[in-house]
């Protein structure tokens, strides 16, 4: 015990904020000088710019190529963009290839998705106070006059809504034009161009675009001229491959020329040398195989940023296993004495800065509510195992972790793969990074992910080599082929439609889903559960129906030649990844999202406990209380909140959770049998739990009308009162281990810095990771915070019931302390915040 810590301790992040400095200490941060200069410049203007040039040139080209095969049209559009877009080389940058303005943070427009509502969307986004965007008036006018009219009837958004049968639109849209979503079953396909993705960067780094182009050329020559189908489908596909390679090579060459021009007039000899290196790198990669670590990073970055021009996936386009595919170059350069670790840190800084400046523009109503705070998910993966099952950690894994500890950017995200034999040193480095308090890295568990995907049919070598993608998903870059953004179901809404016999209060008294009987007539819990099952499965079936439609529509709208060129199976089969057909040798791994899982579990547990088991509440009373949002019925609400809750390792609640998962999986497994697509149950709400809660009436767990439902697979807000071990165990016990129809579960755990303080705290955190690994949970991420949280907790103690604080040589639940002592601790915090004490 550390008896001296009679005050609350701070996470390094909090300390850095308090002192107005960066996280790295002065000794380490010498290598971040370049970063600090660029950071000030790039982030000085916090309002991101809307760059309309991508939309302009893309539209120009698409107008020219109407009627041609889609994949070729996209490749030609990319070539047009490579020719026309301005080339930017930012002051101080070592990696080049940004695809929009160099004024700071920026985003691009994708009229092929939401061209029909883009004008209004931009008007709204300009005035959105929480996430404003900057667009020049001339640009806005240009969009409205020249871009929107062309896409009015062609945009995916419009076409998708039109294709949904009229009587079903109410499940997803609240208005006829689909501009306002109804979060009963949500779709993300009309805001994202693709499900999260990771191209095979290693291929372009090692082979180069010229070799891929040559391969396509040889294959065209070898096509059977007597086979009309090949001559039609394959020839155009392969031509598209050649064109896309030409496009990215041209794009790089233009950067080489620009760098040379700048070098010629550069006065500072150091910068001149850097510009010459940039010129040399860009004239070599991605056309040819990379020769150095710097070139490998440049090649990778050209691809990652160029994909953003191809489609709207740029904000969740993972970096893949950066510590693996860059390692041979790192090792060779280090051995040859060409590279120092400080230079690696600088290059990583340059990459993070490039990525962090790209913003997903929240233009549609869905993305504005579901991806708050300019969210994006470009995960870098470190650690894990090699293709042949050895531990994969290397020097780069540790350098990347260190870089994320010292860099105050919110992007990109970092994922650490851990497994049963992960070295203790690696887990310590991960724990130290978690303790910084920025929420990095999130942890992925090989011991769940690998066997599960083997059971789903993944090839052994590819699944050993998986990388993080999106917020919690994974990708096998040459095996995964499912690109359709997936649907989200509102699990808590199924509770509401059960309670009100198929009605959704916000929809009115008209039947919304399906009648399952007046719950006041139910005599047993089994009857109630049966009605809920029907409601839930009704919702699942519609979600699958909608998803199928999305998949068909996408094949008619999109193509992704660059991603095809970097995907072994798509390239071999001459099939674009957006095809609704199955590409030989690939796996279609998607999901159906389950939002508000814990809220639903707790609500059902409350109905079971208070209405059927203990009989202290009659159904009518419960319904009345819900309908009036507990007004004047606070005592009922209090009682409901005292019941069994998910997140406490309580079998009463957890068994209901497991049954919900199994109920969904029955439907999902049958869909797989019919369609061959794994649409498995996922629990990753992101911020969608907020809009999904907004449309719901009060729920039987005591949640008030309109309040958020629970997030991911986390417990309902503040209801996990038995500590973090119980949270993991509840997660374990609610998983239906008898089915493989499960996808990711996102789990948030919150610690205060004091709870993980010192080496003792790090060791404890490492043990916690190990136990998480043993329990075969998929994902976990940590918040290590106090400060504002404590103030907020004081104002709303119910909500923060589970917030643990270290007070004086022991840990306690903050809200259980007296107000005076809470104030005491808060005042010490504030004292520190202004840099005075200790």
């Amino acid at each position, binding site marked *: 015990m550390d*008896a001296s810590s009679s005050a609350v301790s701070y996470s390094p992040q909090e300390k850095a904020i308090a002192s107005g400095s960066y996280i790295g200490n002065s000794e380490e941060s010498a290598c971040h000088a370049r970063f600090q200069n660029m950071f000030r410049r790039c982030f000085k203007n916090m309002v991101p710019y809307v760059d309309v040039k991508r939309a302009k040139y893309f539209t120009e080209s698409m107008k020219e190529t109407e009627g041609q095969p889609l994949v070729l049209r996209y490749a030609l559009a990319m070539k047009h963009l490579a020719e026309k877009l301005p080339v930017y080389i930012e002051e101080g940058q070592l990696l080049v290839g940004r695809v929009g303005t160099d004024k700071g943070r920026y985003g691009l427009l994708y009229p092929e998705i939401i061209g029909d509502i883009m004008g209004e969307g931009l008007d709204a986004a300009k005035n959105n106070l929480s996430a404003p965007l900057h667009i020049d008036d001339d640009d806005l006018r240009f969009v409205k006059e020249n871009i929107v009219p062309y896409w009015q009837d062609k945009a995916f958004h419009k076409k998708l809504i039109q294709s949904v049968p009229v009587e079903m639109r109410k499940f997803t849209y609240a208005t006829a034009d689909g501009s306002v979503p109804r979060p009963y079953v949500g779709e993300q396909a009309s805001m994202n161009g693709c499900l999260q993705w990771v191209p095979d960067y290693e291929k372009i780094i090692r082979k180069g675009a010229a070799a891929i182009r040559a391969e396509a050329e040889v294959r065209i020559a070898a096509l059977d001229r007597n086979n009309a189908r090949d001559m039609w489908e394959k020839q155009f596909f392969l031509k598209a491959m050649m064109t896309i390679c030409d496009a990215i090579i041209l794009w790089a060459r233009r950067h080489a020329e620009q760098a040379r021009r700048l070098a010629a007039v550069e006065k500072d000899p150091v910068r001149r040398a850097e510009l010459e290196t940039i010129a040399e790198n860009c004239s070599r990669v991605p056309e040819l195989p990379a020769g150095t670590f710097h070139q490998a990073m440049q090649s990778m970055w050209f691809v990652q940023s160029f994909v953003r021009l191809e489609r709207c996936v740029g904000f969740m386009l993972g970096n893949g296993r950066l510590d693996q595919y860059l390692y041979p170059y790192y090792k060779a350069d280090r051995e040859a004495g060409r590279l120092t670790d400080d230079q690696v840190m600088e290059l990583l800084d340059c990459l993070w800065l490039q990525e962090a400046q790209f913003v997903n523009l929240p233009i549609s109503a869905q993305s504005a509510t579901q991806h708050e705070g300019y969210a994006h998910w470009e995960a870098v993966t470190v650690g894990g195992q090699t293709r042949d099952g050895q531990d994969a950690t290397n020097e780069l894994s540790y350098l990347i972790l260190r870089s994320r500890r010292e860099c105050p950017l919110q992007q990109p995200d970092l994922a650490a793969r851990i497994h049963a034999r992960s070295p203790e040193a690696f887990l310590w480095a991960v724990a130290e990074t978690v303790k910084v308090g920025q929420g990095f890295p999130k942890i992925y568990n090989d011991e769940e992910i690998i066997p599960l995907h083997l059971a789903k049919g993944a090839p052994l070598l590819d699944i050993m080599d998986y990388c993080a993608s999106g917020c919690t998903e994974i990708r096998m870059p040459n095996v995964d082929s499912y690109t359709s953004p997936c649907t989200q179901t509102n699990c808590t809404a199924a509770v509401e439609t059960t309670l009100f016999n198929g009605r959704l209060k916000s929809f009115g008294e008209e039947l919304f889903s399906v009648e399952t009987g007046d719950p006041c007539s139910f005599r047993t819990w089994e009857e109630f559960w049966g009605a809920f099952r029907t409601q839930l499965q009704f919702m699942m079936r519609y979600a699958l129906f909608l998803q199928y439609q999305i998949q068909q529509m996408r094949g008619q709208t999109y193509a992704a030649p660059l991603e095809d060129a970097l995907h072994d199976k798509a390239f071999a089969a001459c099939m674009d990844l957006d095809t609704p057909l199955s590409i030989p040798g690939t796996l279609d791994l998607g999901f159906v999202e389950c939002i508000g899982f814990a809220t639903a579990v707790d609500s059902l547990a409350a109905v079971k406990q208070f209405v059927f088991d203990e009989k202290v509440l009659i159904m009518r009373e419960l319904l009345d209380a819900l309908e009036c949002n507990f007004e004047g019925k606070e005592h009922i609400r209090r009682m409901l909140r005292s019941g069994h809750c998910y997140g406490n390792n309580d079998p009463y609640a957890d068994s209901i959770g497991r049954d919900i998962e199994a109920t969904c999986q029955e439907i999902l497994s049958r869909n797989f049998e019919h369609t061959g697509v794994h649409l498995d149950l996922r629990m990753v709400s992101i911020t969608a739990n907020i809009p999904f809660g907004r449309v719901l009436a009060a729920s039987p767990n005591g949640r008030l009308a309109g309040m958020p439902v629970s997030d991911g697979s986390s417990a309902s807000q503040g209801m996990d009162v038995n500590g973090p*071990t119980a949270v993991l165990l509840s997660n374990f016990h609610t998983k239906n281990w008898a089915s493989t129809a499960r996808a990711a579960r996102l789990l948030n755990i919150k610690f205060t810095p004091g709870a993980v303080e010192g080496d003792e705290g790090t060791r404890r955190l490492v*043990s916690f990771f190990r*136990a998480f690994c*043993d329990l075969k949970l998929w994902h976990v991420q940590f918040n290590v915070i106090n400060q504002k949280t404590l103030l907020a907790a004081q104002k709303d103690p119910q909500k923060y019931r589970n917030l643990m604080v270290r007070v004086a*040589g022991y*840990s306690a639940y903050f809200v259980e302390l*007296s*107000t005076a002592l809470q104030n005491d601790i808060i005042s010490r915090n504030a004292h520190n915040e202004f840099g005075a004490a200790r």
Partner: protein
Amino acid sequence: MTDEKTSGLIFNVQKFSVHDGEGIRTLVFFKGCPLRCRWCSNPESQNAVPELSYSVQDCLHCGTCAKVCTRGAIRFTDGTPVVQRQLCRPEPGCLCTRTCPGGALGIYGKTVTAGELLRQLLEDQVFYVRSGGGVTLGGGEPLHQPDFALAVLRLARRARLMTNIETCGQTSVETMLSAAALLDTMFMDIKCMDPDKHRAWTGVSNERILENFVRVREAFPRLPITIRTPVIPGFNDNAGDIEAIARFVRRFSGVRHELLPYHRYGEQKYLRIGRRPGMGEASLPEETFATLREVAEKLHDDQL
């Protein structure tokens, strides 16, 4: 009676307890203590019977509790319930706690069998194994319920859980030695070397405690022991008292000695059980504690 069926009174089981021994542990709070330390930060642990807790912050002042109590133990006067502690016999079925709309009433103390408790202790096994943690008996004084505590320790041992105890040392030598035989580590308090002062502040002399420590040490020389001394303003917050303890402890090689600073975080709980905090406004300045810790550490270093 079998160990599984032996029952006892506890008032909390805290998972992920991290300051009560190695690794991630589950801490069981036993109810009942032979000492009455004035500074006690867990006043609800002292009496060996269940106690009603009343939180005025949560009270809606509706008077329901007074109406439903079958013993007439709650009097509702001037809009506030007053608990008649001599009449109150809290038990799980009590209507006052079950019907309180504000959730202001609760019960400290629950009777469980050692078998039931073991099942709860086993829940976090995966965390113990990975962290070198286990089970810690604390309270209250676990050995104040010797049959129950020993039953729990035997069951935990049989289940191969690592065991630890936080004891004040005030128990029979036989109980102390039986417990020590079932422990992997032991935390014991030595609060003051002066028997009279000890009696004045805790209600009992320190003779039995010191003897128990010596006997355990002789019988189990390899059992890792940590001696803890709470530094209490007005009681032992001076170099003389702390030095005396440190000198005593350092006679036993390998025994660790830790000082814990006085804190006031138990105040709220006194009020909940209708008592007044015993220490008033007293507080321990950080500097005083730091100085005393140096005193203790210096003596410890001399030993090495």
